[in-house]
């Protein structure tokens, strides 16, 4: 399909001939109409499925469910309640911790793999690339189920290995280990996805940029650090922002692990899981809406701060 791009050169006469003015305004109008025609189908669904629910959610969050039935306007009191709710704040703390530990590990690994594959010094690099990427095609539900069994004491190979060595197997689904176990699952799922984004960006760096450096005897590490990483900064930024959003929205993993270890994890392990519980178990939709709104606000603030701080660094250098 890439070949097609080559055949796309325009006939020579289109360059020289300028259309007369009147025709140009007419065609501008026609083009504007075409543009709206092209984006309208998307916009209709976008407004119906994103904008409308968002505002509806904001509206709902200003009410409180009455015991007798019906709803009463309470202003911002749901938000005030959420800001002192240990379940919400605890969940926020856990995903914050998750963000600080798991995301750097995952992205550094992804960057390392991408650079290693791009350096063409690895044998079988194509197969390795696919091997690292393949977990992305595994649904989060299946990944969590699978790792849940792997962690488990019944027939998990980790526990089996420890037992064979005569050592007590660590409980990977206990209070102090579950967050780490979850980080491992998410890392396993998403390193490959992030690696592919970075790798794809690396492939498009013009080689002139670092051929000269290599001739001058710069090491591969030096080239990677000083030339390649700065060159793919936008791609790295993309993975950072997506990872921030993903961490704050953790739901599948805690929701399924909750079934494996209900006493350990609780149903308020992450803010998203808590909002789900509040809305569909406690039936308190307005409060769930407020929680989800606050979560969105936190995501926006964190993403914004991260972007600003990297932009400032760029300006300084």
């Amino acid at each position, binding site marked *: *399909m890439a070949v097609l791009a080559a055949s*796309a050169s*325009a*006939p020579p*006469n*289109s360059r020289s001939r300028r259309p007369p003015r009147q025709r140009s305004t007419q065609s501008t109008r026609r*083009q*504007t109409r*075409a*543009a709206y*025609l092209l*984006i309208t*189908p998307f916009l209709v669904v*976008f407004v119906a*499925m*994103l904008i409308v*629910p968002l505002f509806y*959610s904001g509206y*709902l969050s200003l009410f409180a469910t009455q015991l007798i039935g019906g709803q009463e306007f309470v202003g911002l009191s749901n938000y005030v309640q959420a800001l002192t709710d240990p379940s919400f704040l605890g969940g926020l703390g856990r995903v914050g911790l998750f963000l600080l530990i798991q995301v750097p590990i995952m992205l550094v690994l992804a960057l390392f793999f991408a650079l290693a594959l791009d350096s*063409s010094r*690895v044998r*079988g*690099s194509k197969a*390795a690339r696919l*091997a*690292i990427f*393949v977990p*992305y*095609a595994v649904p989060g*539900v*299946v990944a969590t*189920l*699978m790792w849940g069994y*792997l962690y488990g004491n*019944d027939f998990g190979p980790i526990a089996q290995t420890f037992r064979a060595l005569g050592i007590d197997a660590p409980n990977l689904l206990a209070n102090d280990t579950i967050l780490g176990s979850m980080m491992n699952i998410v890392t*396993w799922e998403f390193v*490959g996805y992030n690696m592919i*984004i970075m790798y*794809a*960006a690396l492939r*498009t*760096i*013009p080689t002139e940029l670092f051929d000269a450096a290599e001739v001058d005897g710069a090491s591969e590490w030096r080239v990677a650090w000083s030339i390649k990483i700065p060159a*793919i900064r936008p791609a790295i*930024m993309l993975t950072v922002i997506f990872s921030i*959003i993903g961490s704050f929205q953790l*739901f*599948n993993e805690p929701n*399924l692990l909750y*079934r*494996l270890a209900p006493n350990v994890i609780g149903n308020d392990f992450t803010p*998203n899981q808590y909002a789900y519980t509040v809305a569909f178990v406690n039936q308190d939709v307005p409060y*769930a*809406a407020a929680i989800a709104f606050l*979560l*969105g606000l936190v*995501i926006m603030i964190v*993403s*914004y701060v991260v972007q*600003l701080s990297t932009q400032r660094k760029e300006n300084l250098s």
Partner: protein
Amino acid sequence: MSAPTIGAPTPSALDAPRASTPRAKRHRRQIMREGRRSTLLTVLLWACAAYFLLPLLWLLIASTKSNADLFSSFGFWFGKDFNLFTNIAQVFTFKDGVYLRWVLNTVVYAGVSAFGASLLATMAGYGFAKYRFPGARAIFSVVLGSIMIPLTALAIPTYLLFSSAGLTNTPFAVIIPSLVSPFGVYLMRVYAAESVPDSLIEAARMDGAGEMRIFWQVALRQLGPGVVTVFLFSLVATWNNYFLPLIMLNTSDLYPLTVGLAQWQATAAAGSGSQALFSTVITGSLVSIIPLVIAFLFLQRYWQSGLGTGAVKG
């Protein structure tokens, strides 16, 4: 929603042909470099690759075991009996063959959603890339900023809206929300800016083609790899979606694989009498991931080049 956009592509996205020349050069360089393999790096990278493959290998081996063997044999070696086909038969016949229903549901939900999402995203992305019109910048910023809205902030009100329209517990409840792919629009905008030359559009206009005809018959051909990328990633997103169908559906016959498997797993973990389910859940999990893995393997040429463009300008 004046959220910071993820670096909206600037007009510099138009210096397109850059990618093609270095690629040819790169190829030459790669051949030159064949002799410079590093054993250390190879070993290190393959050791890491093993970490990604081992859980899947375990899943494959575990699928060949009976329940008794699961508990009595080592995870990374086969049990006494080779039960793969018995297990697969069990997966497809358990509870009147509801698994096959889930497979079909998943294929329909994911297929229709991905087709619709990539069509909408391609049209919109091309519209944003190739036309200047009032409001374009503002609309695009809003679309891109929406990536940050948390799932639950939308899922709960969407559930209520669908519920009052009588659409919950129908396939539409899963498909319609999945038609929106803001990231797909972003990707297609970048891709269209790079791969559809303005001169080509101008030439088609000179020939008297209408704008819509230009899109469908001229531009769409250039957009191939980008469309495949958006299609595949929407396919994965819907195929793997758990949250949305979990809240929208409550009839087992309508479940996709994710929700169904989670339910089986809960049954397997809860009941002491239903221990026999573990091998079924494991084999069911294995079967459920095969189609996507195959799709990615066969279409990698397209999605990798498509993703490349999006990532560079990201």
